[in-house]
């Protein structure tokens, strides 16, 4: 019944042995109330801190607390762990924890043949089976014949155990997730101390809860050990991490930290004007907890007040930010034009979700690129950049701040719900390593004009209230070159339009060239942007291993593009562009470089699987479709 796809060594039966694995995909699934997010998070912290690489992917239902046991109420936490570089949360599941029938049903299609199921029998009673639309328990049929099933009544087991300690039974239901976690720990023979430490911290003031939880966790381990649930434990080697400090980080948190870091490096105070919206809300929440860092934030009445208050703070000399997701970005478009016209620094973070309209708020997509590039009335160019992984959100946030401050412009940073909520280990930079950020605060007071410009960068000075003798008026009307006075002059409007465009285009000179992983020319170049990086990288690894002639270019700057981009594209016969949209970047690249690009478009509210990209490449290169 057990088939270990990629595992390197299987020892003899009967005796407990260890199987070295380089990668494993684990998914904890259950009801919203089953605490799957918590155990997933604790497990990944434990893994990471012992030097195992990983990517996590929390996957909630859209309901706050959907009725227990329903198919749509399943909440899951997936992670891929390994001893080598992990860049996606995994296509297929190796190990599934299923706390009830619905969670099994929903996740079974993604379970690898031969994978392990840890099932909580308690969640397969009549009611649960009915809600999951099972006629009969799949555990009793041969539906799961292809898998290794470890089924136990977690509540019953825990009850027995806790009774020994004399604990009241009400602590039971709540701790069954830790029993499951204990089993998983045993399966990969991982030290549980980090989780125990955490429990100790959390229940510092509640000894009973502490004991209950730790003993249930312990029980899971023991149960697995004593029942001999599998013949072989997994052994995950450590990845070689460079020396340094690490933490697990999600993209939304990385943005929040990045903002503070940028403000410190720029020696500017930070202001966030924002309105909650899934999946960007967490950034606002993190920032609102940063009071001790001196950060100011305004939870605005709506997205328009979010961005306009940020513009006000930028006018006041703050590093200013607004954060949102699709529908909110739509509402901010008018004000973005104001930021363009007044040439004030502003960071706009869009954590993209599946659209159109309300769409599927909890699901990721890359379909706001058009909006970011073109979604403003009039000619209103601004830099657009995108982050490609949870930790890259930190770097790109600093890049957004760098561009905004240096070029006196709003900058749009695109991330998405996938990297916003996924986590990965991040090598924490020391403050000193971070780049200093340039600001345009020096003015020639004698000849001061609000729209005087640096002849090279075309950037105007940042002059804010309080600066003596430099009083002036700015606003959304077209302004006279230099003086900044209102002007309806035809030639002036042309000039200012050109300047605004050239200023942004000129940023080409200040961003890194596009670089390619893989051969510098050849059959096929995969161009990616944003959160597809993980899947493309994993696919690339496999393809390269298999000897395919493929290269990968991952764009971080979508406006302007790196200067050498056209030349790089010219080096490949085919260009493949996987996007979680219907071809938005494809259109822009085609327009700019007049190259025919093969779009690979997935609009399902789900990240790409590495295998999908792998197969697509093979299809192009071999010219025949390969089954996934």
């Amino acid at each position, binding site marked *: 019944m057990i088939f270990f796809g990629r595992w390197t060594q299987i020892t003899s039966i009967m005796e407990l042995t260890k199987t070295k694995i380089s990668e494993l995909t684990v998914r904890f699934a259950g009801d919203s109330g089953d605490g799957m997010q918590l155990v997933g998070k604790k497990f990944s912290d434990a893994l990471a801190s012992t030097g195992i690489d990983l990517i996590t992917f929390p996957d909630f239902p859209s309901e706050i607390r959907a009725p227990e046991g329903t198919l749509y109420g399943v909440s899951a936490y997936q992670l891929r762990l390994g001893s080598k570089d992990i860049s996606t949360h995994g296509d297929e599941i190796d190990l599934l924890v299923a706390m009830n029938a619905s969670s099994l049903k929903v996740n079974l299609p993604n379970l690898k043949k031969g994978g392990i199921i840890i099932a909580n029998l308690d969640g397969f009673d009549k009611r649960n089976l009915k809600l999951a639309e099972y006629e009969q328990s799949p555990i009793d049929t041969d539906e799961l014949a292809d898998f290794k099933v470890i089924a136990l009544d977690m509540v019953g087991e825990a009850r027995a155990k806790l009774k020994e300690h004399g604990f009241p039974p009400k602590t039971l239901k709540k701790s069954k997730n830790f029993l499951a976690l204990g089993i998983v720990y045993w399966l990969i023979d991982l030290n549980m101390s980090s989780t125990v430490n955490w429990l100790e911290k959390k229940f510092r003031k509640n000894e009973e809860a502490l004991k209950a939880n730790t003993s249930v966790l312990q029980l899971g381990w023991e149960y697995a050990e004593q029942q001999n649930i599998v013949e072989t434990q997994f052994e995950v080697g450590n990845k070689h991490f460079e020396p340094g400090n690490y933490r697990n980080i999600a993209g939304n948190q990385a943005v929040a930290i990045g903002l503070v870091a940028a403000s410190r490096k720029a020696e500017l105070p930070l202001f966030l004007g924002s309105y909650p919206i899934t999946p960007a809300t967490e950034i606002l929440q993190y920032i609102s907890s*940063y009071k001790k860092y001196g950060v100011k934030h305004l939870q605005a009445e709506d997205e328009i*007040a979010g961005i306009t208050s940020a513009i006000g703070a930028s*006018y006041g000399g703050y590093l200013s930010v607004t954060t949102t997701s699709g529908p909110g970005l739509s509402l901010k478009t008018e004000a973005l034009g104001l930021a363009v016209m007044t040439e004030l620094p502003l960071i706009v973070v869009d954590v993209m979700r599946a659209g159109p309209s309300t769409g599927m708020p909890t699901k990721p997509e890359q379909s706001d690129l058009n909006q970011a590039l073109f979604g403003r009335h009039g000619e209103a160019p601004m830099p657009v950049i995108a982050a490609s992984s949870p930790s890259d959100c930190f770097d790109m946030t600093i890049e957004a701040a760098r561009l905004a401050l240096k070029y006196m412009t709003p900058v749009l940073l695109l991330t998405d719900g996938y990297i916003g909520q996924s986590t990965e280990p991040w090598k924490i930079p020391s403050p000193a390593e971070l780049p200093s950020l340039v600001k345009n605060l020096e003015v020639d007071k004698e000849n001061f004009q609000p729209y005087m410009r640096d002849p090279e960068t075309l950037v105007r000075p940042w002059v804010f209230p309080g600066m003596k003798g430099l009083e002036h008026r700015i606003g959304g009307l077209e302004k006279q070159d230099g003086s900044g006075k209102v002007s309806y002059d035809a030639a002036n409007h042309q000039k200012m339009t050109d300047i605004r465009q050239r200023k942004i285009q000129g940023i080409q000179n200040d961003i890194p060239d596009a670089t390619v992983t893989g051969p510098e020319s050849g059959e096929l170049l995969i161009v990616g942007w944003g959160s597809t990086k993980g899947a493309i990288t994993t696919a690339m690894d496999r393809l390269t291993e298999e000897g395919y002639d493929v290269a990968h270019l991952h764009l971080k700057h979508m406006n302007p593009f790196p200067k050498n981009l056209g030349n790089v594209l010219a080096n490949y016969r085919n260009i493949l562009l996987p996007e979680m949209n219907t071809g938005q970047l494809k259109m822009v690249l085609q327009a700019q470089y007049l190259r025919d690009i093969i779009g690979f478009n997935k609009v399902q509210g789900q990240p790409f699987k590495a295998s999908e990209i792998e197969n697509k490449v093979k299809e192009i290169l071999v010219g025949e479709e390969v089954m996934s």
Partner: protein
Amino acid sequence: MSTIIDQFTQMDTNGGSQLTAKDFKPDNDVRWCLGCGAYSVLYPVQKFMPDLGVPKEKIAFVSGIGCSGRFPYYMETYGFHGIHGRPIAIASGLKVSRPDLSVWVVTGDGDNMSIGGNHFIHGCRRNVDLNVLMFNNEIYSLTKGQYSPTSKQGQVTKTSPLGVLETPFNPVHMAIASGAPFVARGYDKDRFHIQYLIERAARHKGFSFVELLTNCLIFNDEAFDDFTKKDVRDDNTVNLEHGKPLVFGKEHDKGIILDGFKLKAVTLGDEYSINDLLVHDETDSTLAYILAGMDDDPELPHPVGVFLALDKKPYDERVTDQIAYAKEVQGEGTLEELLLGDDHWEVN
């Protein structure tokens, strides 16, 4: 955290007391129609500025779009001509980030009560220390004469050729109900009074809302004549003064009494003496609300003056305080600490 802002703004700044109104007039033309009611606000503001005691580089005027929106161009201070309906939101960001500034908002009845209605009510509630001057001409002037949320029911305008169907907002009611701590009203034909109100608003800490009835002679001429013209003014308006009885009339022979929670106009004489009259209390928001209701009663004069002046800590100060509190309790946060977080580990 002493920031770059301090460094750039605290250089050789001195008080504004030696300045005169002229110092606040920039060298460009005022482009309102001759005779526009807006001048009646501009001049008192320019006049008052030297008395504010704030150096002019520390003063910022933020406006929206409309005829009124041009105001910042006519003030030799910092100025931001925002987009339609959003000046309060812009100004809130400015003031929260820069509590050291004196921040003014100039807006119109359309800008503030139509497209900007949400920012207006939230501005009142949030209580950022702004001075909001709303030019109410009961019309959209810049777009040439459509009705606004303060236009009268039945009013004929370019978009209501057969008369407006809605009842207008009472801006004072809205401000009070939304939580504004300072609410006042004046009209263009009494610039002296406007200057008084502006001074009061400026001195009040917190969100100060001043409704200014300004005549638009092009698109809604004489909108307020029935109670603001010299000859009828005394009989048709009553000036609210804190601690004083509500007397009005050319001969100071009329007054307002309170009957339960209803207001009544009476003639002083045998039946009623000045002692029977309602005494205004600026610190009572229910009273302020009741007084503002006089507008709707044709038997009563229109109230002007300061309706409400409540002591209420402004939002921007609360933000500063909360940050100070967090630093005190949690310790001042360093970037290193933030980067490391609670759950980091080291690889050697």
